[in-house]
């Protein structure tokens, strides 16, 4: 069963009651909220996501709640809470949706140390994963969004979840938060991309969420083997360049772009070493999205032989 099977009324009722269950890759989330505006957006943007079965283990119980204290009476605010605790300052009520999305990412990043969590976008073609480890602002979300609207499957735009048992990458195909100029770039790139409303003036500027293609969401339990590590950088006006990167440098860049490399200690070292061993490593500099997509497609095609 998926969220889209429920009437909007049902979604709102679940959110206001015992919570709406939703599955994002390996995680079951239970969401509670009494905001009508949130229910409408959740119904729309989460429609293709599965609802975990009744007997499933819920990993995170999250909630959008009105803050306590005096300030609630003169400003409409909303708090993200997990298990009744609010780790962040309140948000203005208009930003409830992005607040929840960030909050869920925070839960994953701070609580999922059974996996190695790389800070990386991951896409897949024919069972092989291409990872884009990058610092914020290097354009990985934009590139990743363009790729998944060009025949690649989305594993994640934020988390490279590496399973310690076999080094495979687990999908977590969440909504992709595009920021500022990227929103229009993607609208121009694919006019049929499903993009939610723009939220202006958030802590990260203007944000709008892209829903991944249905195929990516349906195949959220199919892991992939890492095959390419590409370190992207968008530079205005730059000519496209895709150059091989020494593996030693790639290793350092993966290890330093991780949420919990240090926490996993020797396990993380071996996982990253194995990954770099199994991957061709490149640095990519681009300004034209179509060109970048073409070159990466050719890279994947060349590898088939």
């Amino acid at each position, binding site marked *: 069963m998926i969220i889209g099977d429920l009437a909007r009324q049902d979604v709102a009722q679940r959110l206001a009651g015992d919570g709406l269950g939703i599955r994002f890759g390996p995680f*079951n989330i239970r969401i*509670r909220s009494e905001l009508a505006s949130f229910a409408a957006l959740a119904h729309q943007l989460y429609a293709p996501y599965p609802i975990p079965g009744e*007997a*499933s*283990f*819920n*990993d995170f*119980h999250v909630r959008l709640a009105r803050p306590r*204290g*005096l*300030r609630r009476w003169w400003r409409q605010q909303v708090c993200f809470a997990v*298990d*009744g*605790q609010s*780790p962040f*300052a309140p948000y203005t009520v208009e930003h409830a949706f992005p607040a929840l999305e960030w909050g869920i990412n925070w839960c994953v990043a*701070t*609580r*999922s*140390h*059974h996996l190695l969590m790389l800070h990386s976008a991951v896409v897949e073609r024919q069972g092989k994963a291409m990872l884009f480890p990058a610092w914020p602002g290097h354009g990985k979300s934009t590139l990743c969004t363009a790729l998944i609207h060009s025949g690649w499957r989305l594993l994640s735009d934020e988390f490279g979840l590496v399973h310690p048992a076999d080094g495979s990458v687990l999908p977590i195909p969440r909504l992709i938060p595009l920021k500022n100029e990227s929103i229009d770039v993607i609208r121009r790139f694919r006019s049929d991309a499903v993009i939610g409303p723009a939220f202006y003036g958030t802590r990260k500027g203007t944000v709008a969420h892209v829903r991944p293609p249905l195929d990516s969401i349906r195949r959220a339990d199919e892991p992939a083997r890492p095959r390419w590590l590409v370190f992207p950088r968008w530079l205005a006006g730059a000519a496209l360049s895709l150059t091989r990167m020494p593996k030693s440098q790639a290793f350092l860049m993966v290890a330093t772009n991780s949420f*919990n490399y*240090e*926490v*996993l*200690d020797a396990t993380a070292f071996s996982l990253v070493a194995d990954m770099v061993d199994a991957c061709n490593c490149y640095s990519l500099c681009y300004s034209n999205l179509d060109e970048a997509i073409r070159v990466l497609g050719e890279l994947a095609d060349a590898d088939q032989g």
Partner: protein
Amino acid sequence: MLTRASVDSATRRAQQLLLDAINQPADLIRLSVADWELLVRVGRRARLLGRIEADLAQRGLLHAIPTGAAQHLQAARQVITHRQTLITWEVNRILWALAGSATPLILLKGSGYLLARLPPARGRVFADVDLLVPEEKIGEIEEQLVGHGWFKTEIDPYDDRYYRVWMHEIPPLRHSERGTEIDLHHRLLPRTSRLPSSPEPLLAAAQPLADPRLHVLSPPDMVLHALVHLFLEGDPDEGLRLRDLLDVHDLLCHFAQQTDFWADLVARAGALGFRRPLFYGLRYAQRLFATPVPTSVVQQLAPAAPPRPLLALMDRLIPLALLPEHPDRPRGRATLARWLIYIRAHWLRMPPGLLTRHLSHKAWLRLRGVRKRVDLAQLDLRQQ
């Protein structure tokens, strides 16, 4: 509609799950998925996920529980192992930074349990290194640490004064690369405390570890310090730390194997003026963890009990403050109990005039909506 009775029964269920997990870990394999889900939530709140993991791992039962729950326990274990490595290394670095100094360093709480290989270290999250040193050496040690990569954390002048003039420790020192913190104590309780806290007897009784510069408190002092810390520290949101009471339970069970331990403990509590905290500690450890305490000890401490009406009140308040609430159904009376316990702790920590000034300063900050300094590293640790 949530009735009071249904909220109470949900809370009781959550609390019972947690206590049963600690007291009868072998029975955990019988829990349903829904029970596990609730246990992971309250266990995280009480920072006991690592303990539950350690107990199951010891019995080879991690594979016998639902995968979803096992993953959260495994995640907690990863963080704990990492913190143990960090803390051990931090102590090593402190010794390096203080090379040439003959001042004995007494490791308090977590780092002490870890380096002395005591049972409470099992599955426990260690936040930072707490050191007790002679007061006259504080300035010298602080300077040496600052010269070797640690820095004084930026706090507002009010808080700095609060620490330096009234407290039992100086503001934390943080390492510029590793981010780990050291709390330097010169006594166990604030200078302003109503309870006595002269550090000399503790320093004199401390016991050396393998490296003769490192010490831990003597067994009775360690128990008493854990109790004083439990009842007099803490914050109104978190309440009293169940984790700290479990440390006391572990220490009591461990040291009880030594002859004369109980007699020494009672005598020491008398000498240091901590008979009341010991009375409370044994009472609630027995109630929650069925800690075996000799009847003679209970009888010897009976005169340390507060007057009957006060004891009846504490019997209501302390469990409310110690045990985590159901995460979706927190009860107002638990919040109230935590505030009362917090005010009581402050009452014992400082004289009324000072207390009024301090609490009104904090209330003023709260009213203006100034948020407490949120330390992201500490926040992350609380997720395990």
